[in-house]
């Protein structure tokens, strides 16, 4: 930059730098805006509450309704309970290349999960149903650790997501998929 000869000169340089800063911030806005809208990477944000004390008595999160189910119209929904210190169920089959809706809640404390190698990631907060929508591209097993401290057993809280190629994808008569029948 030019050597400073007087105060006006200094202010001019400052002004030029302010323009550069404005430009940089505009670029940042654009990058973040585009990555949020165009790539449609939306974090789980539909506020849906549920009473944590009666989660297991609810129709949706009753033990028999957990896991992966395919509706008659073909929509795939995974329902999971995150509880100290396990996910129910522990193995979750999903079809490759199809939209999947994952719905999770906790009856006790805060948990969270990510599915390694994918963008699926959410906090699981008691009192709310967290919903994540995603499409699994690569077939194979993906680890699904609990990623928020939930107590002394937290390190042991892992599940497995099994992405099954369409050709091998099978469900039972009720539209439920299980890890031992699809592989």
């Amino acid at each position, binding site marked *: 930059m030019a050597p400073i000869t007087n105060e006006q000169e200094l202010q001019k*340089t400052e002004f030029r730098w302010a323009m550069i800063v404005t430009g940089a911030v505009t670029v940042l806005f654009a990058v973040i805006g585009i990555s949020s809208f165009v790539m449609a990477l939306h974090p789980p944000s539909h506020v849906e*509450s549920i009473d944590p004390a009666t989660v297991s008595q609810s129709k949706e999160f009753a033990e028999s309704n957990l896991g992966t189910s395919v509706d008659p119209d073909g929509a795939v929904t995974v329902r999971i309970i995150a509880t100290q210190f396990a996910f129910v169920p522990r193995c979750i089959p999903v079809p490759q290349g199809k939209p999947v809706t994952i719905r999770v809640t906790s009856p006790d404390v805060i948990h969270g999960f990510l599915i390694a190698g994918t963008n699926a990631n959410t906090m699981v907060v008691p009192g709310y149903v967290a919903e994540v929508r995603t499409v699994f591209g690569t077939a194979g097993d993906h680890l699904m650790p609990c990623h928020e401290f939930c107590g002394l057993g937290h390190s042991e809280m892992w599940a497995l997501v099994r992405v099954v190629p369409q050709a091998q994808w099978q469900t039972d008569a009720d539209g439920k998929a299980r890890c031992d029948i699809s592989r």
Partner: protein
Amino acid sequence: MTYRADRLILAHFGVAFAAFALAILLGAWQMTVRSGLEPAFTSPEAYFASVTAHGTIMGYVMPTLFIMGFGYFVSVTTLDRPLPSLRLAWAGFWLVIVGVAMALPAVFSGKATVLYTFYPPLTGSVFYYLGLVLVVVGSWFWVGLMIWAMAGWKKDNPGKPVPLAMYGNVANAFLWLWTTVGVAVELLFQVIPASLGWTQTIDIGLARTLFAWTLHPIVYFWLLPAYIVFYTIAPRAAGGRLYSDMMGRLSFLLLVLYSLPVGMHHLFMDPEHGTGFKFLQMMLTVLVTVPTLLTIFTIGASMEIAGRLRGGKGLFGWIGALPWDRPMVLATCLSFVLLGFGGFGGIINMSYGMNAMIHNTSWVTAHFHLIYGGTVVIMYFAIAYEFWPKLVGREPLSLKPIRLQLWMWAIGMVVTTFPWHILGLEGQPRRVATFDYTNPMIAHWQNWTIVSMIGGYILLTSGLLFVWNLLTLYRGAEADRQMHYAVAVYPPHRVPSALNGFDLCNGLVLFLMLMAYGYPVAQFFFIKDYPALVHRVDLGN
């Protein structure tokens, strides 16, 4: 300067760094556990108690005490008048000490293993929370004294610009006051009643939102002393002048404004908030980069002035001409470089969409260790090396071990955090004690974890060398006890009142906070939500 508060300041710094030494020891041990090397005491109980202690000391105890001591030093040296009340300052100090003495035993006895972020419904011993409340209340004494000191000086010096370092210092006092509101409300109205057994349930959405209120600006509270030093000490240490006093004031003001209404970027992955306010706070987060970019420019220009005054020529020749042997110059440069790495990671974190790849993975741990350890703490070292000789009247024996210590810290930070970035992208969750490396899907994580553990031991060695460097200072030659601050190229004669006080600033903060948090907090009082049952970790359930 005629007025001093040496013992007060040394007491703050002394306790801050003693706690710091303990916390880095815990940090290195935690990394050893995570690497699967099974060091002594490996157990989930010990690991998570250690993580709680490490976070509590590094987040609440060390920086708060350090910043209080720093503020007292800046106040007496820039205003050249005594503190408004030395007695209240000591009272604040002792409140913090009592608070620490209550909180840490609760943590080490395993009765408060909730991590420093609390995250109810997990609830620990009431002594842990009450101790932290005392730490915060003690720091509010400091806030009051700093505001009072500036007001007194302004009254006696009407129309004159408040010295830049003091202006930044009071900016930080106000920032801290605003910052602590969230966590104070969470602790006093939600967590402490639960830990006393008065309430059996907690509104988790509200608790998380209040904590997010605090969790972002607290980082800027830690950071502000570093920025103050960039503007008011580093240019002089380099042998030059501050390029622009006004840029400093503007940056401090913007740091207060933009660091507060943005904490919900920590809740992007949370189900209790809708898209709208997450998006709004993300956009406000982008603005936090403005004061940092202004600072990079102003300090770069100030350093250029210094380099050219020392005979540096050409486009980059001035860089080589800087006095790199001086710890302050070296630390400033290292701090900027690590801020660059940490800032890059942060931009990913704050991106509403991209955050999904790395939320709650080791990537996040890497990011905030780079900002906290790399940018902030390295400047705390430099500040201690600058102030300690003035406080005890002794010159360091040699600058060599000081430079070595700073280099080791910066290298240790890189070695520790770069593997965490990689592991985070691969989905390694943070806050996990041990991994099953016999699982072929994650077996390859172990090597990177071991590399970062080695980084942890480099940091530990550097931290201990830092303590050693301060202790050996007492054997040094007599030092000049006068503190000199950098002078601006064109020292201001008058500054607009908005940049000489905080009335407008606080008004704007109030407006922004109402806009950013008004609905997100209020919603919990009218949407149909259900509280969670309290889980008492201190009672074993």
